[in-house]
């Protein structure tokens, strides 16, 4: 066996260019299959991590998934708000322990701005019910104060006391600027690995003040209310994007949900975060299935190429096999020599693919974190990835039997004199 292994190794080295390219193809296909799986698993984990301890998310009636996407994950555009009266009504419902209203829509250099109340910092939970923590500074107290997520502060290099201007909407388009009312950075939150890191937090009143002299998404011509004067106006918000609700007893969640859905004054909906996420995954599952299927096909192509290359090389190696036969190699040895090569290349390719995934995750994780708030786990392959790896190796080893079998037949027929 040692002899065979040495021979296989040196024979492979002799054909290193073709085999190297095939190895690269297998490695890339493994990278794709494993990468899709890693991304899928991490996406789910990342979303599930983003919110905990919130029993209901309430918003204007529409798509529950969309409400979750923009209120929790800061993805997509807000389509409709709910009235402040409804938000207040919610807080007074029996069994409600706390409510945190949130208002979205503005941005700062691409990062979303969230208007909320001080209760947000007490009540919001992520991961395993972990509370938000200030890395430095304090919560917003004065009107034009902001608390930054860790990513925002780090990326833009902001420190406490710095003045920042918010932009209206996504910040695109001319004049969409709240530069007349700058904010002071009052606090910076510790990193959470959730969309909170990418959020600029301000008070609901500040949000209202920003838009006093705006109507219909544009500044009102000829009307400009300077910052020192805004206190003279009523800064109670007219509407908010969503309300996070915590209950005293989780069992009451369905009763409250019914009350919310039945409210006559306004068309509302209460969404259980877990249920909405499940709905989201059902939507995504189809795409995931396709991605998996395509990457499996790519692996099949890679392994087929591997077998084809070994088979193609076999004809040139017939004399080599005949020589081996003359010095005592059994047909079974010849079979093992070829099968070993296929199996080893598939294993090596799969391992290389896994290493590539690991390297790519290390490389891409900061970018994904910064731009999408997604956390990739740079750790060792999980159980699902392990199964896929084992699958590639198993299929590769079985595929390697094909050239092995062919070589076996050839060496039986050829004996010591290959008929070329």
């Amino acid at each position, binding site marked *: 066996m040692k*002899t065979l292994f040495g*021979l296989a190794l*040196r*024979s492979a*080295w*002799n054909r290193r260019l073709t085999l190297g390219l095939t190895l690269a193809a297998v490695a890339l296909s493994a990278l794709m299959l494993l990468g899709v799986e890693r991304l899928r698993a991490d996406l789910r984990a990342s979303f599930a991590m983003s919110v905990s301890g919130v029993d209901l998310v309430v918003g204007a009636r529409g798509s529950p998934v969309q409400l979750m996407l923009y209120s929790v994950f800061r993805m997509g555009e807000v389509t409709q708000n709910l009235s402040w009266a409804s938000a207040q009504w919610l807080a007074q419902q029996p069994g409600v322990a706390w409510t945190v209203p949130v208002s979205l829509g503005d941005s700062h250099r691409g990062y979303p701005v969230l208007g909320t109340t001080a209760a947000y910092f007490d009540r919001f939970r992520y991961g395993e019910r972990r509370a938000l923590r200030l890395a430095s500074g304090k919560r917003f107290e004065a009107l034009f104060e902001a608390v930054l997520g860790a990513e925002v502060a780090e990326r833009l290099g902001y420190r406490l006391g710095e003045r920042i201007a918010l932009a209206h909407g996504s910040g695109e388009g001319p004049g969409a600027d709240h530069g007349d009312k700058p904010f002071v950075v009052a606090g910076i939150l510790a990193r959470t690995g959730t969309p909170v890191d990418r959020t600029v937090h301000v008070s609901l009143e500040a949000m209202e003040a920003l838009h006093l002299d705006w109507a219909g998404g544009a500044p009102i011509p000829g009307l400009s209310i300077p910052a020192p004067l805004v206190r003279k106006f009523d800064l109670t918000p007219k509407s908010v994007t969503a309300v996070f609700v915590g209950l005293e007893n989780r069992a009451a969640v369905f009763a409250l949900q019914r009350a919310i859905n039945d409210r006559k004054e306004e068309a509302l909906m209460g969404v259980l975060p877990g249920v909405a996420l499940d709905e989201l995954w059902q939507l995504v599952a189809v795409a995931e299935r396709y991605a998996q299927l395509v990457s499996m096909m790519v692996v099949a192509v890679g392994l087929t190429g591997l077998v084809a290359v070994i088979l193609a090389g076999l004809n040139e190696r017939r*004399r*080599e096999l*005949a*020589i*081996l*036969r*003359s*010095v*005592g*190699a*059994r*047909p*079974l040895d010849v079979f093992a020599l070829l099968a070993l090569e296929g199996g080893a290349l598939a294993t090596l390719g799969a391992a290389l693919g896994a290493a590539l995934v690991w390297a790519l995750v290390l490389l891409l994780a900061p970018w994904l974190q910064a731009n999408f708030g997604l956390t990739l786990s740079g750790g060792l392959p999980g159980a699902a990835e392990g199964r896929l790896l084992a699958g590639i190796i198993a299929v590769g080893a079985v595929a390697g039997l094909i050239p092995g079998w062919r070589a076996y037949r050839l060496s039986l027929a050829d*004996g*010591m*004199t290959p008929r070329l």
Partner: protein
Amino acid sequence: MAEPAIRLTDLRFAWPGQAQPCLDIAAFTVGVGESVFVHGDSGSGKSTLLALLGGVLVPQAGSARILGTELTGLSAGARDRFRVDHTGFIFQQFNLIPYLSMQDNVLLPCRFSARRASRALARAATLAAEAKRLLVELDLDESLWRRPVTRLSVGQQQRVAAARALIGAPELVIADEPTSALDAARQAAFLDLLAAECAQAGSTLVFVSHDARLASHCARSVAMADLQRQAGPA
């Protein structure tokens, strides 16, 4: 007298699907230490004869005793082992494995056969030393040893193949047209060298070629046509 190196009796072999036997030999005996030249045109069954002597093929009828062992009674695996234990082969050309060094090519039989390895070690301290001794005997200068075998001349390659056939002193050396790629002068030199080495190692030499002029290098000469009971095309 002891058991001869080769004794074929009433041997018949036909390729699958062919009615006419390719080989039909009443008797063919080669004594231990003899060197025999077998002459035959292409298609006369030479290669089939060698495959039978090597135990790669088994006759449908009759007996093939090599060194006192009846090959027809052995399993395929046992015949493979018997082949490497007792026989060295030299082929027409492209005798060497391109990705192995000269020395590793020579030592191949020792990798597959413990018997060949131990017999080689009986002559030298290490396998490498024995390989080098043979290479020097066969006029392969040390300056060539590190060269990739594919960059040797055909004559040099054939001498490496001879060293491989001779290592571990197998009782039988079978050469199949080993000189057909060499020019006349080199043919003679190679065959004399081969015969001398076989004699020195006490190996029986069976040398097969279509070229009858080479018969002078062996003590005894046999034509395929005379071996066959009824001369028929293969």
